[in-house]
């Protein structure tokens, strides 16, 4: 596809979409949204980029290998944060009771580990969306390797 209108519009839109996605991820504990919603927005911005340019251009921005590292990394990050609760002497995924710092309600850093968990989920969802898109659109789909 070589439509200049689509490419220009996409180039303008994608950064805003990504910033919005990051906003939704980071404000998961303050407003509706969170890791999955933000990650989906982030992932779809990358899919939009790959669609309006071509698949290789998208793959250059985020390689398959990196993407699958991010995918696994997001899951591992989540579990490690969960184990942090154990390390602090309480149950799996414990937040406040484990003594994690809480700021003022309504501030960005006020949810203890929820912020970190949303980040992990966001990264995982975004990279999963992207990998799924590539697996389905490329001829060599690897089929059936997801979650």
């Amino acid at each position: 596809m070589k439509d200049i209108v689509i490419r220009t519009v996409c180039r303008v839109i994608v950064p805003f979409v990504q910033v919005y996605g990051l906003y939704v991820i980071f404000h998961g504990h303050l407003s509706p949204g969170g890791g999955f919603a933000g990650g989906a927005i982030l992932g779809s911005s990358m899919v939009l980029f790959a669609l309006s340019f071509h698949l290789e251009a998208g793959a250059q921005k985020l390689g398959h290998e990196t993407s699958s590292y991010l995918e696994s990394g997001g899951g591992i990050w989540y579990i490690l944060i969960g184990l942090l609760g154990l390390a602090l002497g309480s149950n799996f995924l414990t937040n406040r009771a484990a003594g994690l710092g809480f700021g003022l309600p309504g501030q960005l850093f006020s949810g203890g580990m929820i912020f970190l968990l949303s980040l992990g989920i966001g990264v995982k969802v975004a990279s999963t969306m992207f990998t799924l898109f590539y697996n389905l659109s490329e001829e060599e789909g690897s089929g059936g390797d997801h979650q």
Partner: protein
Amino acid sequence: MSLHLPVISIALLLLASFVMPLLRRGARAAALPFTLSVLGAVFTVSLYLIYLVESRGAFSYHVGGWPPPWGVELYIDHLAVYMMMVLSSICLVVMVYGARDLYHEIRAEVMSWYYTLYLLLLASMIGIALTNDLFTLFVFLEISTISACGIISIKKDRECIEASFKYLILSVLGSGCVLLGVAMIYMITGYLNYDFVAQELPQAIAEYPYNILMALSLFIVGFSVKSALFPLHIWLPDAHSSAPSPSSAVLSGLVIKIYAAAILRLLFRVFPAELFEVVPVLDILLFLSVLAVMAGSIFAMVQEDIKRMLAYSSIAQIGFVFMGIGLFGNRALLGGLVHIFNHALMKSMLFLAAGLIIYAAGIRNIRDLRGIGVRMPLTMGAFAIGAFSMVGIPGTNGFISKWHLALGALDLGRPFFVAIILLSSLLNGIYYLPIVINAFFGVKIEPRSEHRDVPGMMLVPVLILAAGVIFFGFYPGPILALLEQAIVL
């Protein structure tokens, strides 16, 4: 610290499954030892948990430190540790076998994905066994569905892909029904935790009887589809026979049972017992289980492919588990539950033995198995033990579960079911024993294809499982003692 072990084992399995795709190139060789050590660790933990539950009784674990009804609760009782032990032990042994077998069934690039899916499947099944929360149950159900389909379709064979698609569609239908049932329960009680729902339900029945009936029937339909109870079994033969042998062993031995264990928990811990006097749910389950036992055996008789025959035999055997649930008596339930372990042992062993025969001689058709016992005496010996156990000959563990089921049926004054058990044993004999007899005493047909030697790594797990079949045939005491405490009717 030891109270954290259940959640640590689930977290460890999930962590390991996420680490697997990261192992690239040189590190790929580490994938198998890593998987095996994780499985071994989980098995050890499950044994320790049995000791813990025996010594200090059932305990619950609040994820995130939130007490129920707000948080997710894991409830570790005798039934849960029993299921965990069954799951992790069979998974460990099958993985030892799969280490060699998988290389000739699936491509080397996707091997690490196989480990991922396998570990995810085990993690989700343990989650189903331990959870005390309806929605967590649903989440683990879906994870287990996808990973169970994944370990079939990873073979990239046309039959495998088609079978796993069929399996996926029907499983999703099943979990959709379960989710709708959860919604119905949540709508009237406002809780998702089993204990709180169980407290609320007796009062709710008077006010909203239809919701509860609908929830009950949706749960029954959903879990019956997933555990292949007779009229809803159509996905099973394709899926279990086309999958790689280690996958078949796990799918047939464990995956269909865990859903039976889940519905058992729901029926006896969540729904009030008075409900079953009004609604003939248990009778329906009994009726279906009798049909399953008969139809599964009859279908198995006419099969030519050995793995397909084993798959149909699983349909018959899952009927015994549901018969134990449906009879609703202490002893019968004991028989049904112990059959979960016994059938997991013998069916996974039979699938692995069939996989060995396919690996070594390339034979799938039952008629070609004539005289194979001379070439592969150990494999066919193990197969024979499994076949005897299927028939229920004393000294094998299949006898123990049928014995307790039959005694349980007599306790309740329903000798009809004893006749069914005897008849099914007879039918099992009709299709299992000729294979064994022909294999050892049949006219030897010249090997038509090249004969590969059986590696020790593949033979040893089969022999371990065969020894287990014999051992638990003579000493079922520990398992029965554990299960007697698990059943509180």
